[in-house]
């Protein structure tokens, strides 16, 4: 009786510790082995390698732009799901719900502001991340396809932001989407049906609002999540972030995993003692191809992910959240008058990231709206397959890449200038005005 009671008490006393130990397999690491084990056995940490190159951790190398994009996506998901609880995708209710967010929903204003500014920021940061990858030559083999996935992610980001733009159902939203989808209508052959399919009607109305809503809250985020997962996975499989030549190991290296097989007892009469003496047999369990961190250089070039990478990531997360919060406290997301189908604002402007397009469209409808952008996207997709030289990987503005970088920066500059003109220098009737 007392013995049983004792064991009960013991079990109860050990309960918190036992539960804790069942969740976290390792104590806080104090040795290298523990640090490796922590990265390895935790679901969230095992996405990262056990060791990470010092170069990848240098803020001046990556500027954390990829991570910021991801964290902005997380912020958008969280605030977006919360906003969904109060939003109705209906032309008669959507705008009122926006007003409700302002007046009667607790934290409604800050949530909407965060969602809006994080969305704008994500478009910009994803683009800057792409610039970083280009200017450091990080799309070179074996990372070509991850660049392609990155371009897909950029397009998905644009569409996520664009579909969300309509949802407040104010004048800004309505006319931006009217103008934006009209640009899509300029595509040859499929343009008209694409526009009809997107809007579910000839003009922007209830059907378009519902379609954009479903695309915005389900379809695009789901596709985006899948591609983000592939993007991250490939970073690991392609050997981490791009490193300068000296650190890039020989490509043909092959790792061999071996397992020691227990010798098979030949006869039932074989003594146990002979088993120890029997020769060990090895079988190949698998071949792993690809770039590795050289064993000899391990210590000087890399550090443990726990805690170095984790701390770096948390700092980036903190900066991102603080940035979004500060902007959201200082500036309110715009909300104009409710939709008036009869009175287009003058000028009617698309979202800022499409204003370069709109500026081009004002010169030539087809070439500006469809031809040139399609060509630009195609070139972006093909970048790693056009530029096959292996020089200048992992360094900003490498001298060997001066031509590629100049071309790319020209392309960036032209688009930025077009966006700036479309945003600040275009007034009524799309005539040139000075913002000063």
């Amino acid at each position, binding site marked *: 009786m007392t013995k049983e009671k004792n064991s009960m008490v013991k079990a109860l006393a050990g309960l918190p510790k036992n539960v804790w130990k069942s969740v976290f397999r390792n104590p806080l690491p104090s040795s290298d082995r523990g640090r490796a084990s922590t990265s390895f056995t935790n679901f969230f940490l095992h996405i990262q390698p056990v060791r990470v190159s010092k170069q990848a951790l240098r803020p001046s190398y990556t500027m954390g732009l990829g991570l910021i994009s991801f964290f902005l996506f997380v912020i958008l998901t969280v605030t977006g799901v919360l906003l969904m609880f109060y939003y109705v995708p209906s032309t008669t209710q959507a705008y009122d719900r926006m007003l409700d967010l302002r007046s009667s929903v607790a934290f409604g204003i800050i949530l909407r502001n965060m969602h809006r500014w994080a969305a704008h920021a994500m478009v910009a940061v994803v683009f800057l991340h792409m610039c970083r990858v280009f200017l450091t030559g990080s799309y070179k083999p074996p990372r070509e396809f991850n660049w392609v996935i990155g371009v897909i992610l950029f397009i998905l980001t644009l569409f996520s932001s664009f579909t969300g733009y309509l949802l407040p159902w104010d004048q800004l939203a309505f006319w931006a989407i*009217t103008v934006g989808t009209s640009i899509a209508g*300029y595509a040859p052959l499929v343009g008209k049906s694409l526009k*009809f399919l997107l809007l579910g*009607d000839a*003009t922007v109305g*209830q059907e378009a609002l519902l379609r954009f809503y479903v695309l915005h809250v389900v379809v695009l985020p789901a596709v985006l999540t899948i591609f983000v997962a592939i993007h991250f996975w490939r970073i690991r499989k392609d050997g981490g972030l791009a490193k300068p030549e000296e650190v890039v190991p020989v490509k043909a290296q092959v790792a061999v995993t071996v397992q020691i097989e227990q010798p098979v007892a030949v006869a039932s009469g074989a003594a146990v003692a002979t088993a120890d003496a029997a020769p060990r047999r090895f079988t190949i369990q698998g071949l792993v191809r690809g770039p590795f961190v050289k064993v000899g250089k391990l210590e000087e070039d890399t550090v443990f992910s726990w805690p170095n990478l984790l701390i770096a990531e948390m700092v980036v997360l903190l900066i991102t959240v603080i940035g979004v919060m500060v902007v959201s406290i200082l500036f309110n997301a715009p909300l104009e008058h409710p939709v008036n189908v009869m009175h287009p604002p003058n000028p009617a402007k698309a979202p800022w990231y499409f204003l370069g397009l709109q500026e081009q*469209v004002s010169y030539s409808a087809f070439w500006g709206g469809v031809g040139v952008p399609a060509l630009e996207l195609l070139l972006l997709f093909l970048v790693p397959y056009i530029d096959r030289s292996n020089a200048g990987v992992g360094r900003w503005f490498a001298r060997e890449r001066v031509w590629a970088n100049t071309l790319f920066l020209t392309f960036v500059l032209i688009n930025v200038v077009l966006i700036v003109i479309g945003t600040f220098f275009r007034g009524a009737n799309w005539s040139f005005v000075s913002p000063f």
Partner: protein
Amino acid sequence: MGAAPKQIDAGAEQMPRRKFLGWLSGAALAGSSIVAMFSTYVFMKPRATYGQPNRFRIGRPEDFPSGVRVSIDTKRVCIVRDGAKLAAISTTCTHLGCIVAPSETGFQCPCHGSQFDVDGNVTGGPAPKPLAWYQISLTPSGELEVDKDSEIQMGTYLNV
């Protein structure tokens, strides 16, 4: 002794069959994907729209005296009458879908400055195409009916 060559024959026959089944599965998979994508497209393309009907009545011919140019913004159409000739011209800008307003010289788009003459021909700005003309007809009840689904050639009038 005759068994050995027979076995080789059977082995040689088996590979094409396996290959054939492989091809067949592949083709079936590709076919199903195409059917699935097409079905999704058919599903996503609405058969009936819930918006405004594209065929609507606008009143009797007497409501539009000669020389008038009335823009009906809710229907996005402008009714033009010159003597006995009646026409319905679209007021949706062919540039980016804004509503054009009738002006002294024709039509003017407020969004990006496209200009059209009284017949809808482009006279300035970024618009790539002239404004559309819609079928207008007289119903048995004596009312005018505009059908935005059927575009007609510019300069085709209804005589009333």
